[in-house]
């Protein structure tokens, strides 16, 4: 059994962000000290990066969760500097460099569609109106790399119930902000903007599915999908849509951006599955970010190791067909 469910995560296990910051400052100072002042920012990936990840706002009263894994967390530095967020560029380093233009306050989430109480809710109400929990989850990207991220957030189901979905609500559709001024990557039609994703209702209501508001105890950095993103840990990362402005209950399977672009490569379900290869690469193994140049790859588990909790959602389904 790989999934451990500690009843409590000792807060001492989590390296506080201040330590990371101090480490970065130390490296910077050391680089400058030995006469590498010019090379310092290069080595660290740009001086501005330091300012972006430091000075985050701590989220108060974050509760631990039994759903957290006790696996080694990916460093804050790697979590915030290796991102697929095409709204800010297609290179992994682009979001950290470009996401400063995103304005996350004020931020309003619209919830509508097949529900009795459609409406809007602001980010501050989302933060104060729902108990924020820390969920340390494995994240498996469809590109065969993985991280372990200590998210802060709350179950998506808690939010959805407030809007009273009707019996016609069989799916939930999500949409990212569309604003090329704030999201320079949207000025080129690399993807069909705005980014869209969807879940089946039971997937959306599953207790593992969260809306994340932060990571490492602080509000989400812009490059990680601030101020509000989906996290579905048993699915490939592209399902976990970022910077959400709209959630809609639908009767039919909603559009999903990568699925529309390459339906044979990116399925609607996109459950992590080592038995179904991406046409262009194997999904049997993955590389864990932060383990270094010579680290061995890890075996990928069905449903990213969350099979005990979620496999029953798909009983009787042909997962090769509905990949």
């Amino acid at each position: 059994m790989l999934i451990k469910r500690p009843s409590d995560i000792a807060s001492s296990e989590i390296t506080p962000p201040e330590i990371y910051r101090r480490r970065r400052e130390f490296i910077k100072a050391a680089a400058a000290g030995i006469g590498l002042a010019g090379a310092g920012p290069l080595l660290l990936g740009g001086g501005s990066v330091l300012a972006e990840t430091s000075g985050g706002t701590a989220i108060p009263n974050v509760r631990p969760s039994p759903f957290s894994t006790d696996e080694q967390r990916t460093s804050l530095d790697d979590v915030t500097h290796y991102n697929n967020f095409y709204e800010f560029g297609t290179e992994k380093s682009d979001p950290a460099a470009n996401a400063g233009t995103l304005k996350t306050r004020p931020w309003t989430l619209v919830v509508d569609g097949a529900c009795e109480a459609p409406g809007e809710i602001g980010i501050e109400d989302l933060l104060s109106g729902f108990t924020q929990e820390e969920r340390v989850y494995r994240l498996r990207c469809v590109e065969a790399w993985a991280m372990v991220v200590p998210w802060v957030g709350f179950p998506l189901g808690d939010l959805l119930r407030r809007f009273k979905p009707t019996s016609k609500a069989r799916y939930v559709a999500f949409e990212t902000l569309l604003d090329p001024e704030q999201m320079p990557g949207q000025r080129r039609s690399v993807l069909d903007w705005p980014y869209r994703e969807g879940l089946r209702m039971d997937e959306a209501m599953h207790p593992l599915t969260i809306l994340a508001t932060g990571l490492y105890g602080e509000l989400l950095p812009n490059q990680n999908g601030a101020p509000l993103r989906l996290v579905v840990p048993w699915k490939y990362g592209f399902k976990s849509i970022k910077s959400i402005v709209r959630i809609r209950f639908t009767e039919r399977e909603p559009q999903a951006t990568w699925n529309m672009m390459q339906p044979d490569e990116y399925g609607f379900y996109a459950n992590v599955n080592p038995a179904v290869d991406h046409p262009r690469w194997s999904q049997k193994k993955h590389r864990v970010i932060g383990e270094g140049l010579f680290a061995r790859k890890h075996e990928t588990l069905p449903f990213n190791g969350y099979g005990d909790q979620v496999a029953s959602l798909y009983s009787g389904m042909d997962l090769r067909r509905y990949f």
Partner: protein
Amino acid sequence: MARSRAERVLPLAKVVLFAACLAPCGLLVWDAVSGSLGPNPVEALLHGTGDWALRLLLVTLAMTPLRRLTGQVWPIRLRRMLGLFAFFYVALHLTVYLWLDRELAWSTIVDDVIKRPYISVGFVAFLMLIPLALTSTRGWMRRLGRRWTQLHRAVYVIAVLGVVHYLWLVKADLREPLIYASVLTILLAFRVPWDRLGAMLRGVRVGRSGP
């Protein structure tokens, strides 16, 4: 006079070019040793070596047009070194792929080469480069004579396969591979004997317009 000066400068130019071609490799090694390759160092090495393999292949292909445009012979004198460095980076790229990326798991490698078209074309391009690298010496040029030129025309196919390899592996953003494709198209356009082609087409048309 001018020519003899070029002859005198050439050895120095070769030393400078050798260092310049080795520099990207040196930087990658330096970054690897100092831990500056970023969050995914294997990917950084894989992409870094692949980028330079393709760039040097295109630079090699630019030498013949450069000679024609400048009327100088030095581009041809530098061509072999450039071509061999292109091969060097392709070999590094393949090594990183086999060893660090695929962890020498031969069954998955065979799987990749057979089932994944972008890897198939990349692998074929590598295989085709081997005879060109082996026959790049003066001795082989002399031995093969006119057939050497015919053999080394394979580099056009190799370059196309290299660019296709890049185009097919990209997920959504085709901009960069299309830049390589555009440069390659221009370089290959220099090879088309437009005069002869025009004459041929005119000849055909004359033939067809006959009674």
